């Protein structure tokens, strides 16, 4: 296809070219690096809007456009084109990635202004945007996989951006490896699809999946679960969630872009994209929903006990994505709800992270909320924008979360029988806990005593909180506006759901066993309780600068990342290191030892045999005699037998 849609390859190519120029250009481009970075992403956004308008102008049934760019891999039956799928789902993601991405790029100009490697930072950020666009635009599982891995790489580079900090390097490696574990799932799913269906393109697989389901329903479930493993890795879902909080080692704009607004949503995208597969396997969908529910609770618990402002937000991301997984796991009819929360989350979480970055900017890069307090007056713009994000995430009426999360809780209750009650109640409880820890964050940061007045930062200077420059606050304001208005805009009249229908199937209103308004009231009540508890325990009395000890076991567990790291350590890391050391030893002493031993034995043997060649005729005669004796004896024995 040519024309405007054919130009959609430029969506990816422009930021990619930016990344290459920035990384290969070296120090020459230090002065203009940030302009190239922002310019390319903005250009991609503008093109995205144009293509969006074009797709909007197409008849509803013709909105799935495939653009073949070139033949990528061809071997026997395997025929993979490098192609793009421009449809409502992918173009929605394109707008989110490039839109929020542009804002975060602009914010980074200010945030990274004093960093000597700012150009490199923008190079990596562009690489990330390009990979993410490839991920959502690819028209086959292999193109998606390429973007998928590229996103992992960009996130590795960005988390470890301050590579001279050992903690950053460790966190980066951890993120990459846990992502790779998920990638194995995705790769195996691709292999299995090729084996069963002989194709790996979305269209080909979705056309033939029905046949496979008839012949062996188990295969479809296996594919669904393998895809889910991939999704869990990228989206930080249980059991692969532990990398996400650590990923906060990167600069704050990275947390906002990658670990809130886009990368971690890739898993949700994958499952929504594979709607035709999950529609055929109730078990697969149920597992997605259960994983989502467990994760949303784990994220909530983790968020309650952290004092690091970014880690609280990171756990809230884990938990919010749990909600999205719950929604897409509930299957046919409600995929759109997951995407709705995903878009709203893109606004409010990016806004919250940028706000947190602005607070850190004001507080000498300190992340410990126990050292904050009373900052609302010093950072008015930051406070107001973060307050919008806060109201959105807890689901305050008329803000984003209200429109996005409420229907998910309804849909959870609408599931069959006991499952519905379990999933629904868990989602409801999660809403309350979310309200608690987010209120705690706001109180500790913006209200109460200004605890920083009595303290000095790590480098021994006093704190002088000050509002950030406009290049940082303007993106925050725009995101705050999104946190207020986007939810209503998308949700009223099912606007988003109808737009996505060609990609993920028509939207059906969930029908819980009781009126929807009951769910709304219950949710609001639970949220109010959460806010009140936070006020009661945190807001009413002074916050101690050092974390109180001892605390109940649950708090200790929450502080220790809900056991995630401990499990990984004991189950994988330590046995792995042990196995590796043992193998090195075995290789040197065992396998090679055998070889060297054989050589030594041969040497020893020849040394001993050499001694027989002593040159004395008498000893030769003796051995000849012995030999003859043996022969004669043997002959006698044989004859007598």
């Amino acid at each position, binding site marked *: 296809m040519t024309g405007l849609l054919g130009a959609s390859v430029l969506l990816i190519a422009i930021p990619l070219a930016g990344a290459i120029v920035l990384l290969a250009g070296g120090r020459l481009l230090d002065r203009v690096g940030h302009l190239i970075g922002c310019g390319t992403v903005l250009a991609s956004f503008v093109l995205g809007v144009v293509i969006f308008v074009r797709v909007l102008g197409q008849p509803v049934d013709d909105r799935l456009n495939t653009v073949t760019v070139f033949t990528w*891999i061809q071997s026997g039956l395997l025929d993979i084109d490098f192609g793009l799928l421009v449809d409502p789902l992918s173009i929605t993601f394109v707008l989110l990635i490039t839109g929020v991405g542009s804002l975060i790029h602009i914010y980074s100009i200010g945030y990274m202004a004093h960093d*000597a490697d700012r150009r490199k930072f923008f190079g990596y950020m562009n690489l990330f945007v390009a990979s993410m666009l490839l991920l959502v635009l690819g028209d086959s599982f292999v193109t998606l996989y390429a973007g998928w891995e590229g996103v992992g790489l960009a996130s590795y580079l960005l988390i470890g951006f301050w590579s001279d900090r050992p903690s*950053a390097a460790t966190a980066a490696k951890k993120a990459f490896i846990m992502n790779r574990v998920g990638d194995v799932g995705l790769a195996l799913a691709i292999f299995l699809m090729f084996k069963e269906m002989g194709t790996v393109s979305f269209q080909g697989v979705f056309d033939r999946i029905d046949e496979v389901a008839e012949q062996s329903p188990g295969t479809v479930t296996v594919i669904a679960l393998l895809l889910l493993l991939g999704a869990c890795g990228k989206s930080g879902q249980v059991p692969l969630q532990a990398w996400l909080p650590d990923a906060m080692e990167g600069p704050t704009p990275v947390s906002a872009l990658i670990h809130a607004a886009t990368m971690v949503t890739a898993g949700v995208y994958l499952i929504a994209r594979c709607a035709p597969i999950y529609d055929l396997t109730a078990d697969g969908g149920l597992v997605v929903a259960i994983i989502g529910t467990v994760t949303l609770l784990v994220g909530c618990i983790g968020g309650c006990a952290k004092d690091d402002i970014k880690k609280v937000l990171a756990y809230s991301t884990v938990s919010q994505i749990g909600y999205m997984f719950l929604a897409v796991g509930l299957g046919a009819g409600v995929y759109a709800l997951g995407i709705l929360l995903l878009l709203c989350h893109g606004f409010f979480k990016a806004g919250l992270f940028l706000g947190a970055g602005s607070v850190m900017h004001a507080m000498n890069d300190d992340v410990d909320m126990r050292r904050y307090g009373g900052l609302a007056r010093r950072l008015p713009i930051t406070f107001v924008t973060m307050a919008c994000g806060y109201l959105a995430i807890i689901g305050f009426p008329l803000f984003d979360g209200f429109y996005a999360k409420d229907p998910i809780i309804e849909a959870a209750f609408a599931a069959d029988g006991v499952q519905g009650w379990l999933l629904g109640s868990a989602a409801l409880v999660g809403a309350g806990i979310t309200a608690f820890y987010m209120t705690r964050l706001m109180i500790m940061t913006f209200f109460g005593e200004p605890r920083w007045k009595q303290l000095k930062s790590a480098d021994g200077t006093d704190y002088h909180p000050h509002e950030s420059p406009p290049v940082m606050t303007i993106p925050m304001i725009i995101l705050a506006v999104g946190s207020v208005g986007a939810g209503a805009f998308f949700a009223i009249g099912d606007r988003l759901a109808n737009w996505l229908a060609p990609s993920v199937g028509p939207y059906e209103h969930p029908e819980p066993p009781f009126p929807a308004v009951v769910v709304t009231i219950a949710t609001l009540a639970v949220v109010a309780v959460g806010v009140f508890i936070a006020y009661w325990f945190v807001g009413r009395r002074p916050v101690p600068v050092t974390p109180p000890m001892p605390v109940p076991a649950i708090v200790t567990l929450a502080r220790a990342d809900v056991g995630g790291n401990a499990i990984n350590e004991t189950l994988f890391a330590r046995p792995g290191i042990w196995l590796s050391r043992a193998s090195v030893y075995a290789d040197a002493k065992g396998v090679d030892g055998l070889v060297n031993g054989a050589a030594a034995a041969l040497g020893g043997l020849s040394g001993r045999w050499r001694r027989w060649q002593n040159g004395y005729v008498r000893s030769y005669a003796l051995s000849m005699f012995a030999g003859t004796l043996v022969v004669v004896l043997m002959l006698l024995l044989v004859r007598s037998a």
Partner: protein
Amino acid sequence: MNSWYLPVLIFLPVVGALVLAAMGGAPEKTVKLIALVFSLAELAVAVALWISYTSAPTVSQLDVPFRETFSAAWIPYYDIDFSLGVDGISLTMIALIAVLMPIVLGASWEEKLPAGRTIGGYFALLLVLQGAMVAVFASTNVFVFYVAFEVMLIPMYFLIGAFGGVRRAYAATKFFLYSLLGGLLMLASVIGLYVASGQVLGEGTFDWVTLQSIASQIPESTQMWIFAGFAVAFAIKAPLVPLHTWLPDAGTEAPVGAGTLLVGVLDKVGTFGFLRICLPLLPAASSKLAWLIILLAVLGILYGAIVAAGQTDLKRFVTFTSIAHFGFIALGVFAFTTQSIAGAALYMVNHGIATGLLFLVVGMLTVRGGSKLVGDYGGVWKVAPILGGMFMIAALATIAMPGTNSFISEFLVLIGTFSRHPVWAVLATIGIVLAAVYMLWIFQRTMTGPVRGAAVVGGRGPDDVQEALPGDPGDAG
């Protein structure tokens, strides 16, 4: 009609080596330049061969297994011709050698050699090695293949034994003994092929094309024995676990340039042999014994990765990563699907490029830092950003990141293997996580963190870094 590209490609470097040997007393710079000129001339001939090969083949050319053939009578008594020719994979391997050689010479320009050795001798041996490697890939006669296979051993033995590191004598002897063992078994199998073909045709032959045409008529039991001899030789050369233990020593002790060729190209002769000799000439035995090679291959993928993760020596580390990758290649060859074999063939080339880069980067690092131990480095990326960036690229190619050359080959091997042997493919796929573990771990330990240890030597010290970067780099915002 004979095409002269291949004999020129084999003997041009040998002539170069003789020229270098003849001008013993000349200034070092002249000697190095002459070697470089010969390697560039070789590259030019290889490009010409490539163009000639790819330019509009006629229909009759597409039917024959080899093009650009050359044949001359060599040992008439046994009817042995010195016959050469290339197909797609051998052409690509020859091109890889031709491209790598000038790079290797350039990277060895300032090589610190052991006392008493001259750079002329070093470069001459590298050139001889090049000629022998081209001969292996270009031979279309099993006897010529065998001879080239053995001749290749000689320059490599001296490269390690005379120009290597501290334990060079041990490493060279081990390399030699292993190769000799494989070579002897292979000789038995080469003779076995001759005899077996004699039983079918009435008169024995070493000619590949003839042997291939009668391959199905050789009884399976005979094929098994012949296969065993070849397989051991190839499994030693492209080291499959447990026949691998010569490679870490040889790779570590070899000078950087020779090591790059050893891991990048020479080892591919093993997997190439499986593709060129075992599969087409011994089809029944190959399919009967495929399970064994697949078992060893998957074992190698996992074992190589696990042992690589625990290495404390940078060069040994690279050799173990290669052992893991040879597992992928062998797996692809013996999974017998279109995709897996295509993937394995591609993998041979791509691994040569990726590991060549990795070996060169590690070599440069150890020469500059003066230590081969991982623990002696830290924060190198900060003081040597380009070297660090190259290390990163090599690392990404090693773990087959999409966008790097290795991705398509590894992907094809795995997807092809999965459709026939799902369980083995699943086990092999775990190798991609292990690859990320060992690669990123070594990258973290050497390239990131505070600048310290050997990274300070030769680079800018930590004090200079403070000066170069205004303010604490962590103090963003």
